[in-house]
């Protein structure tokens, strides 16, 4: 057999190609990340600097006054707290509903299972805007508007289909033999679930929690329709309001954007591989 040089491997070319590829990646990253850079940079400007044109591409000095002004003048702490509350409630609701459902979809065989799977897929694909008007009417009739608990319930309804799917694929990966062995050793169905299956699917549970948390944290359409009282504003609502208020200084607005994004960016980066595997295992074979 002809020996294959290392450089013949797919993707690894000669020296020139290596340099070209690396340059292309760096260039693409620079273009892609420019808005992120700009967002952070603009939040670190002083008020005087933020209105100059053309705007300087590099920071002159790091000025944290925007953040100071944000936290003293705007109720951002309160908004973030409420967002955290709604998102946490959404995670709790999702986990409670999704564990038994995913277990039934993955481990049990019953007539109608495919139909439920299709229903989940369908609800996941449906644009929220399709139901926004009837949901508002329903919530008004029930007296559920301006209520963070019922907002979390709605967020749960929207994120459950995806999460059930992600957790199902995670349950699918638990070998049948382990479950059977546990049953033979005298575990009942609940014990099999709690003591055998769940501990083995911890990554799936983490992925589901992160998906649910940030789906709620980021959600704007329903929050803006169902919440009207200022003191109940979540961060996405508060931020959108700052955006339309012309008296909010731009660098304060950008500081608010950065503050709101830190948590999701941190989590997505930390569990990116997990998240991707969970999101794609069922749908896309990698």
């Amino acid at each position: 057999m002809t020996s294959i040089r290392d450089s013949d491997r797919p993707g690894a070319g000669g020296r020139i190609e290596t340099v070209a590829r690396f340059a292309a990646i760096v260039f693409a990253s620079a273009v892609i990340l420019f808005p992120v850079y700009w967002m952070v940079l603009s939040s670190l400007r002083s008020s005087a600097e933020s209105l100059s044109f053309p705007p300087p591409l590099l920071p002159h000095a790091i000025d944290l006054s925007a953040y100071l002004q944000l936290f003293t003048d705007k109720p951002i702490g309160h908004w973030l707290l409420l967002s955290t509350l709604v998102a946490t409630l959404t995670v709790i609701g999702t986990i409670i509903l999704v564990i038994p459902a995913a277990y039934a979809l993955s481990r049990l065989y019953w007539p109608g299972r495919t139909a439920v799977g299709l229903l989940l897929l369908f609800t996941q694909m449906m644009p929220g805007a399709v139901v926004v008007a009837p949901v508002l009417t329903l919530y008004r009739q029930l007296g559920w508007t301006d209520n963070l608990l019922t907002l979390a319930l709605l967020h749960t309804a929207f994120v459950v289909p995806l999460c059930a799917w992600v957790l199902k694929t995670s349950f699918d990966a638990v070998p049948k033999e382990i479950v059977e062995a546990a049953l033979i050793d005298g575990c009942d169905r609940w014990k099999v679930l709690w003591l055998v299956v769940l501990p083995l699917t911890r990554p799936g549970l983490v992925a589901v929690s992160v998906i649910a948390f940030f789906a709620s944290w980021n959600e704007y359409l329903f929050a803006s329709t169902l919440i009207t009282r200022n003191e109940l504003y979540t961060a996405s609502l508060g931020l959108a309001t700052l955006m339309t208020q012309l008296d909010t200084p731009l660098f304060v607005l950008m500081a608010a954007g950065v503050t709101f994004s830190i948590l999701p960016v941190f989590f997505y980066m930390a569990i990116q591989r997990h998240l991707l595997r969970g999101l794609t295992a069922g749908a896309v074979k990698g």
Partner: protein
Amino acid sequence: MQGDRSRRRYQEDQLALATALPETAIRRARRPRTPSGVVGSRSFPYLLVLPMLLLEGALILYPIVRGALYSLETPDGLGLDNYAQMLVDPDFWRMIGRTLVFTISVDVIILSVGLSLALLMNWSFRGRGLFRSLLTIPWAIPEVPVAITFVLMLDPSFGVLNAFVRFFSGADESPQWLLDPTLAMGIIIVVTVWKGFPFYSLVLLSALQAVPDELYEAARIDGAGRIAQFRYITIPGISSSLALLAVLGFIYSTQQFTLIWLITGGGPVDATTTLAPAIYMQAFRFYNFNYAGVIAVVGFLISAVSTIAFVAVQRRQQVPE
């Protein structure tokens, strides 16, 4: 409780069997009744999915039905008048046209950008992990801050993009990004792609990495060049992922509301009013719930068709394997 009863039954079974049979025989004896190896009463699976189905039914399916009923309401009882109005309404067809332009552009661009970056990254180099993580950032930033950032960058008086455009074109005037219908549409397409592409890139990257190296080696031994390898090995190897991502991209763009709403508000006039903002406008600007219901039914049909397409693509990809 269900669990207790089955445990008792199981323990009785085991008592009866354990004395006479070795363990493997117990396993074999239990198998015919419960193919999955999990003992269960017939209603147990339904009990497990019931809470989830109740919530979905109450907060998603019921509102869909209710929205569909709005669409049938007319001043003289239920009827198809609203649909008749829709069919002859040029604004409706323009909205559908814009929605198609938006969704198809986003889908095509997001797949092309996603695949190009995946191909660039499909190569082991120092710092790949870092680039992967950095590329996740647009996907992780919530939509509201994304909208804020782009609005700031496009601001006619001090937006940084104006500085770039003026520098490269030599013009003195800043383009009126959000006041020109074509530019505004282009901008929401770019922002929607920017926010969503990391997912597509990362999925395609893992699909590329799953293509066996041996195939490339065999092709090279047979004298296949770069382009032939890409055409006959890479593309077939990732085609099923590409097909599913195409459906997902279509849905992602059809659902898009927040970015469009906060960046252009559907404007200028209605140049960027795609399906989701159109429903919102009809319902909450014009308080025309009936017409909003008609457009919502169209949205419902689009998601139903997408679901079918998704399942069909997925089935097809499972057959050969």
